[in-house]
């Protein structure tokens, strides 16, 4: 009987969650935008999701072998990276681009920095930046969902903003900024953008799906409300400044909220625990920074979309934020050096 009892430090019980379960909850939350992507973009979504996830899994498996560590695929973090990367790609991107992206995300951004928990930069976003830099044209060609106009999927290039009914919401915003069109005419796209009937990346088009997934994760306490709230509020605030000043140049903040990757970024990307600050105060600063930067890049910068750069910049600032946002003990700082 004695040989069966074990000794280890207290506490001797723990709550049932594991890292794997936390990742699984993120995947369940992602299931909503994944379903929307499959609904709107059909086979394009299938191809990219499979390629990206498979590439991430194989890359991590090979890295585990090289590092001589036990197989870590079971914690599902590679699957999460693969899905988020796929959802952030334009639908018509070839499958091999997704494969290269997945490998870059896992090998360079995650494994070379030490594996799960040690990476500084969000692997999916860093990979997306890498792909945008490497395959510029492929990464800025937008496809319109199959559900629009019953004509099957149509491809439109970002430079061709004259094709009025088929560009993405953000391309419209950029056109308005450059004076090519009146912002007031762009505003009604809000409803379409909310449901997903617009061009854009695989996962960002249906805001409804993202909100449902985000709600699931909030209920399960997989993510806390601070970061999504801070991102959305600060983005709205920055967008509102322009809109209130010059409504025919700057579009309605609501359009910015539902257009592009802001929602996906707020709920699924900025909330990555590894690359965001530890403390509540730090999370607020992080969220406000991400939201403001996304909007500044969209409005003032040259790119129509700013999510990936905003997140990466704030990832870089996270160690500094953590260093300055330290917690004070409940009883105050101790008087004596113990």
């Amino acid at each position: 009987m004695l040989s069966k009892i074990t000794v280890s430090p207290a506490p001797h019980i723990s709550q049932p969650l594991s890292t794997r379960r936390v990742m699984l909850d993120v995947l369940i939350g992602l299931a909503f935008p994944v379903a929307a992507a499959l609904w709107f973009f059909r086979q394009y979504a299938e191809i990219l999701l499979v390629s990206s996830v498979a590439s991430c899994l194989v890359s991590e498996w090979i890295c585990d072998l090289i590092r001589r560590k036990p197989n870590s695929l079971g914690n599902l973090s590679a699957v999460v990276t693969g899905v988020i990367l796929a959802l952030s790609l334009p639908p018509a991107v070839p499958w091999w681009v997704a494969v290269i992206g997945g490998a870059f995300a896992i090998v360079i951004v995650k494994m070379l920095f030490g594996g799960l928990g040690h990476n500084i930069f969000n692997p999916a976003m860093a990979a997306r930046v890498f792909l945008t830099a490497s395959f510029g044209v492929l990464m800025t060609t937008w496809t319109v969902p199959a559900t629009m106009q019953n004509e099957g999927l149509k491809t439109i290039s970002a430079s061709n903003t004259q094709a009025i009914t088929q560009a993405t919401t953000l391309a419209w915003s950029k056109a308005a900024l450059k004076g090519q069109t009146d912002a007031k005419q762009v505003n009604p796209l809000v409803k379409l953008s909310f449901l997903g009937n617009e061009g854009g990346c695989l996962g960002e088009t249906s805001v409804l799906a993202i909100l449902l997934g985000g709600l699931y994760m909030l209920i399960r306490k997989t993510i806390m409300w601070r970061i999504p709230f801070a991102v959305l509020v600060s983005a709205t605030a920055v967008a509102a400044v322009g809109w209130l000043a010059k409504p025919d140049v700057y579009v309605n903040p609501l359009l910015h909220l539902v257009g592009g990757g802001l929602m996906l970024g707020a709920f699924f990307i900025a909330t990555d625990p590894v690359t965001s600050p530890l403390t509540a105060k730090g999370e607020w600063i992080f969220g406000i920074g991400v939201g403001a930067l996304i909007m500044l890049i969209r409005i003032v910068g040259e790119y129509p979309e700013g999510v990936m750069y905003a997140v990466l910049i704030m990832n870089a600032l996270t160690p500094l934020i953590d260093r300055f946002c330290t917690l004070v003990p409940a009883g105050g700082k101790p008087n004596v050096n113990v």
Partner: protein
Amino acid sequence: MKTHTKATFPGGVHPPECKQYSQSNVIEIVPVPKQVTVLLSQHLGASCKPVVSKKEAVRVGQKIGASDAFVSAAVHSPVAGAVKDIVLAPHPVLGRTMAVVIDADAQSEPKKPCADKFDSKFSPDKWSVQQICSAIQDAGIVGMGGAGFPTRVKIEPNPAMPKEILIVNGCECEPFLTCDYRVMLEWTWQVLAGVRLAAKAADVDKIRIGIEDNKPDAIEVFSQAIQSCTDLDIQVVPVKTKYPQGGERQLIRAVWNKTVPTNSIPPVIGVVVVNVATAAAIAEAVVLGQPLTHRVVSVTGRAIAKPGNYYCPVGMSIQELIDHCGGLTESAAKVVLGGPMMGFAIADLSMPLTKTSGGLTFLTREEVTEAKFKHQQTTCIRCGRCISACPENLNPTRIAHAVKHNRLDLAQQYFMSGCTECGACSYICPAHIELTGYIKTGKLLVARAKKKA
């Protein structure tokens, strides 16, 4: 204090309460064991020296160990018999300490609880402050909630730190344990008498009895009982059931809405906290002159055949109590002295019970969770759950990882000394990192380095 929300503290976790295994069991007296091993260090402070010698005959309640140090408490024999030996014996925290081993006389009757000697008519007027403090000192009473701090040192008046409130700790926030609960239900008048004596000795004018709201009958019983104390400012304060509500810093925050400064003690802000079992011991010592030799031990969990609440002599070995309770079941995975959150996992079952042993929790493999059983810790994903759970608002993951990488200076920068080792952080961690274990190790290393210096 708001009246519509329950009093509580920030942080904390909600482990399953699991009180059903022993909460309905009336306190049962165990037969006198053949031999007891009374440890000479059952308290915080200086260890006792033996005052008896081998082969000497001893009576129940005879002093067998004492110390001249100010922060210390005497130990007394729980049985009538003869001293067999004075040797090193297993101790849950210190590894091994000196102990007096006593062979009990055959056929001796076990000492009985004395709750029937107390009722609503009790008044502390018969005893002066000096008499109360002397009685507590002579009886060797220590904090029976687990810390084992010598009670007289805590209670006696100190002009440098006047006390204004006595808070009685009836929370018992650890899952499984029910010893304090049964003491509250069955020894109500004795506990109340001890409370009144302690309040008189400490010279406080306010008394608050904190009880978690998962014990509504205890709340009811005490609310009724205090109606007899018409001359006192005494209230029962139901507090929200949350771990670690029974930690004195958290209890003071919930009941009195004040925070004890880090690394300091409650008297600094005019508070003294006393556990209900300690209060009962105070009453027995002052009124009946009986020293602390026995206590109620909650034997609980799914891995013991007959769980219950047992009135045991200190010095009885854990193995003997296990045998009395029908033995371990097949699925036993851990024997814990104390509760599952802060208790010590025991390998040597010959270890004796002490004045602070409130419970023995017998956990099965399923309850320990596979990851902890196999010590499978995965990487910290910086989720921040430990930070939300910490009742002292510390950063457990940073402290633990600093200790892991031998950066004790960094660990101290993160206020490692403010940790009360409650275990909430380790409980909530999805990666099952032994955060509390690392922090305890870090504190030990710092203390050792200081001693060398």
